[in-house]
């Protein structure tokens, strides 16, 4: 049972790490703000989601699990808002 | 010496009150709002002064020690407050200066409609400085002292920029940044001390500390940080603009008291934490920097056109004077001894605190009266503002070592120590320092006493209460030598008895005439003496010499300008730290 949990953790966290890596590469390599933003939010949402998912089996109890989930939710919320704001600024200033 | 006992002594609660009362004043003044700040301050000042007086009274009954364990937790877990004779003396000095400055500032910082910002800030900051200084004087833990030091800085910096002009803002920012650099160095040493000995309590550290490499590095870093905050030459880039830019009452506090806070911690570090490990060479180095401060500070002071800057540079020189006692305090076994040299240094500190505060207040009144403070433009001041000029004169006499001033007694003590330890060269520096002080006092008085070309029209008449308060402070400084110091500082009667007599009078005359000669030779301004016929002849005779001296002076001033650039000053700071560490390593 423990073994299965650990396998799931390793798989999910690795997937999450891959998305972070991809997002970071995108952030550094993509040509303009909007596409960079796209790469970044993908990494945040999916990468962090997988990391949290992977950590859930290791959580001590329901409370810790809920805390982990809420961290993801807050990161999603903040990430979505900030990228909205950045995108709007970009569109207004016409820097595209 | 600090009390070795790790328990609360009777009357120890006074130490708590000495901190808590001004802190409560800060909180109350802030909460009650702009209209009541001055009222709160004037309630707190007498209470706080009573506490300082009570400490003075109680201390001798407790063998000269007071201690208080905060929260009843003994160190190293808890924090102790401790007072010895030097703490009591500094507490009292601070209370006196704060009282006088409060009276002086009562009219300048009256909360009135349309002008509430400056009074609000001034009175709260004044009380905060008091709280911070008292904490420094009675704090028994190196980290508590750090917090107090930061409290002091954060209270002092806004005072500099109270008038909001661009140059004072710049001065305040430089002051803040350099002071932060200093406190970070201090904090580094604190971390190392804790890592080595598991405590920051001063008494416990003095038992545990030994001269191992880590402790030496820590001590060098802490010393340097404190030197930066005390503005010892060449780490003085922030002092002249900051002290000259603040309003008069604030300058008096900054120059008289604030720089003494970090100096006092330095004394604690050298004399209480680690009396055996500083090493003679490092002490000589400190005193050498002090000598540099005396020469450079005085020469540049003589070249200032603005009185406030002149007094600020004189502070720089006087800070140097305070450091001359370090090499004199070593006993035969190479330990720093809390003896007569330390007493002399503390007396010097007290004397400078009172005299310099009075001087800044007097200059502030002259500024307010004339609408400017150019040395060359204050002819006739003696008749127009007799009280202020008299204050300046008395404070100046006290500083240059006229009997029975505190500085005179301090100088006598230090001279005895130079004889005892055979370090004649510091005796020379002590004498020259007195002469330089005499020089800028004589210079200002010569201008103020000479008759004006046209009748003086005062811009404003400073209130009489302000003038009297400043005068009282100057008088206080001039009478310090008569006070009974024995219960607090190790001072022998032999020194006091030497204060009066033909020998002392001769010394004084030499100082004054030497000072006058220096003033004529080094001050570039047209000398008042030059307007009489005899004076003209003399000036004509010495013209080539004077030109050389003035050229030399301008060279020193240029050098000072270079040293006061940010990068030069901060490089000097690191250099001082490394040199101190190296000297301490060599000694051990």
């Amino acid at each position: 049972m423990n073994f299965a949990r650990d396998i799931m953790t390793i798989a999910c966290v690795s997937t999450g790490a891959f998305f972070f890596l991809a997002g970071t590469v995108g952030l550094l390599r993509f040509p303009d703000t909007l596409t960079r933003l796209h790469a970044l939010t993908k990494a945040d949402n999916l990468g962090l989601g997988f990391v949290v998912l992977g950590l859930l089996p290791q959580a001590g109890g329901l409370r810790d699990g809920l805390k982990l989930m809420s961290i993801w939710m807050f990161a999603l919320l903040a990430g979505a808002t900030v990228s909205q704001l950045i995108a709007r600024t970009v569109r207004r200033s016409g820097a595209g | 010496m600090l009390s070795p006992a790790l328990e609360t002594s009777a009357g120890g609660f006074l130490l708590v009150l000495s901190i808590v009362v001004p802190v409560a004043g800060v909180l109350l003044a802030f909460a009650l709002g702009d209209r009541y700040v001055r009222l709160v301050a004037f309630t707190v000042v007498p209470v706080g002064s009573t506490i300082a007086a009570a400490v003075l009274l109680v201390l001798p009954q407790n063998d000269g020690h007071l201690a208080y364990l905060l929260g009843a937790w003994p160190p190293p877990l808890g924090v102790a407050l401790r007072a010895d004779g030097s703490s009591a003396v500094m507490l009292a000095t601070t209370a006196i200066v704060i009282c006088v400055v409060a009276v002086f500032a009562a009219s300048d910082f009256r909360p009135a409609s349309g002008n509430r910002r400056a009074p609000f800030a001034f009175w709260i900051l004044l009380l905060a400085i008091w709280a911070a200084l008292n904490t420094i004087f009675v704090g028994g833990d190196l980290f508590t002292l750090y917090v107090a030091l930061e409290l002091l800085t954060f209270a002092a910096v806004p005072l500099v920029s109270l008038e909001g002009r661009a140059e004072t803002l710049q001065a305040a920012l430089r002051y803040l940044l350099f002071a932060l650099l200093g406190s970070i160095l201090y904090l580094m040493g604190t971390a190392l001390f804790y890592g080595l000995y598991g405590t920051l309590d001063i008494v416990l550290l003095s038992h545990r500390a030994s001269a191992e490499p880590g402790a030496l590095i820590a001590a060098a870093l802490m010393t340097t940080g404190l030197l930066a905050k005390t503005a010892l030459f060449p780490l003085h880039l922030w002092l002249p603009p900051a002290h000259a830019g603040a309003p008069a009452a604030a300058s008096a506090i900054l120059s008289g008291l604030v720089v003494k806070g970090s100096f006092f911690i330095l004394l604690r570090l050298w004399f209480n934490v680690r009396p055996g490990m500083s090493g003679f060479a490092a002490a000589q180095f400190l005193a050498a920097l002090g000598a540099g401060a005396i020469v450079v500070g005085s020469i540049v002071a003589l070249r200032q056109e603005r009185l406030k800057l002149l007094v600020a540079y004189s502070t720089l020189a006087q800070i140097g004077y305070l450091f001359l006692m370090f090499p004199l305090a070593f006993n035969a076994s190479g330990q720093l001894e809390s003896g007569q040299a330390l007493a002399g240094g503390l007396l010097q500190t007290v004397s400078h605190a009172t005299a310099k505060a009075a001087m800044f207040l007097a200059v502030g009144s002259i500024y307010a009266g004339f609408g400017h403070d150019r040395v060359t433009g204050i002819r006739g001041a003696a008749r127009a503002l007799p009280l202020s000029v008299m204050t300046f004169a008395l404070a100046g006499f006290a500083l240059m070592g006229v009997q029975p001033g505190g500085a005179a007694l301090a100088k006598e003590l230090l001279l005895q120590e130079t004889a005892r330890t055979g370090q004649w060269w510091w005796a020379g520096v002590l004498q020259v320092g007195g002469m330089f002080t005499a020089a800028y006092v004589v210079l200002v008085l010569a201008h103020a006493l000479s008759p004006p070309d046209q009748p003086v029209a005062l811009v404003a008449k400073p209130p009489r209460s302000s003038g009297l308060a400043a005068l009282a402070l100057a008088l206080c400084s001039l009478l310090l030598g008569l006070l009974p110091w024995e219960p607090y500082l190790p001072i022998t009667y032999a020194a006091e008895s030497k204060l009066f007599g033909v020998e002392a009078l001769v010394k004084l005359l030499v100082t004054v005439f030497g000072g006058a000669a220096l003033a004529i030779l080094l001050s570039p301004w047209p000398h008042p003496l030059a307007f009489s016929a005899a004076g003209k002849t003399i000036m004509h005779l010495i013209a080539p010499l004077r030109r050389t001296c003035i050229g030399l002076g301008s060279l020193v001033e240029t050098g000072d300008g270079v040293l006061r650039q940010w990068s030069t000053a901060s490089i000097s700071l690191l250099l001082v730290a490394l040199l101190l560490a190296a000297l301490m390593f060599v000694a051990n």
Partner: protein
Amino acid sequence: MSIATVFEVALAAVVLGLAIWTIAVPETYSATVGFVAYGLLVALIWVRLDAVDVALTEAAIGGGLGGVVLLGAAARLRDAEATAAERPDRFTRLIAAILSASIAAALGLAILILPDHAPTLAPVVAANAGATGMANPVTNVLMAFRGMDTMLEKVVLLLTVVGVWSLASDRAWGGRPGPHHEADPHGVLAFLARLLPPAGIVVGIYMLWTGADHPGGAFQGGAVLASMWLLAIMAGLADTPPVSSRWLRFILVAGPGLFLVVGLGGLCFGAAFLAYPVAFAKPLILGIEVAMVLTIAATLALLLAGAPERNA
């Protein structure tokens, strides 16, 4: 080398890389961004050092709010960058580099040669935890054993507010600090500012409450509350209160004030100044912390807002 060591070396390397970037990058704005990232990674180092309380504080105040202050200033000072270009010459920089490196080397040496038997107060702190009834040793040190430092540091915060306010022009005195934020009331920021604060306030209070026994406490909770308030201000949903406001002044002194009153209670009726009677230690300390969390939140937010600029 164990995998943990590899991770630690990598973390230290990234932190140092960011530190170098922060110092060396030409644009000030990039430097401040670098510093914020640096602060977050330093918080990770604190976790590795098993100092979670500090990690939270560093992330919330050191890198977080401190970063916000620096970023805000960098944005406002973009035009000023050119005016202050008096870069020291190469020789000066070389000397500065040598001296800084020497100090760093001395410090590194001092750390490496610390005694093998490290002195510690951890057992003493643990042994005396019963006196306060709280299990978080850091909170015990902050609130009980070294309560004086904590109280004085609150006064430092208050003085900073006085200092920042004293920089106002005489005309703006009594007015509201900081610029006025106009935001689209139906925009996404306003949406977030409505959605997040309720949850954020719960988190802040939770951090305060859990600080009694677990990592957390008044500073960390206060920083979260402050950021919630700032979010509402930036979204235009709230405004900074005028500095003459009575209740604002009251909140700003509440924390140190209550600390002082409880301390004096100990002086008059108890064992000593800042000594808590064992029976009431926990409720008293929690009471002080509740007052402190409000004070800290208000202070931090006002320090970010700056000097009074506008009439109320």
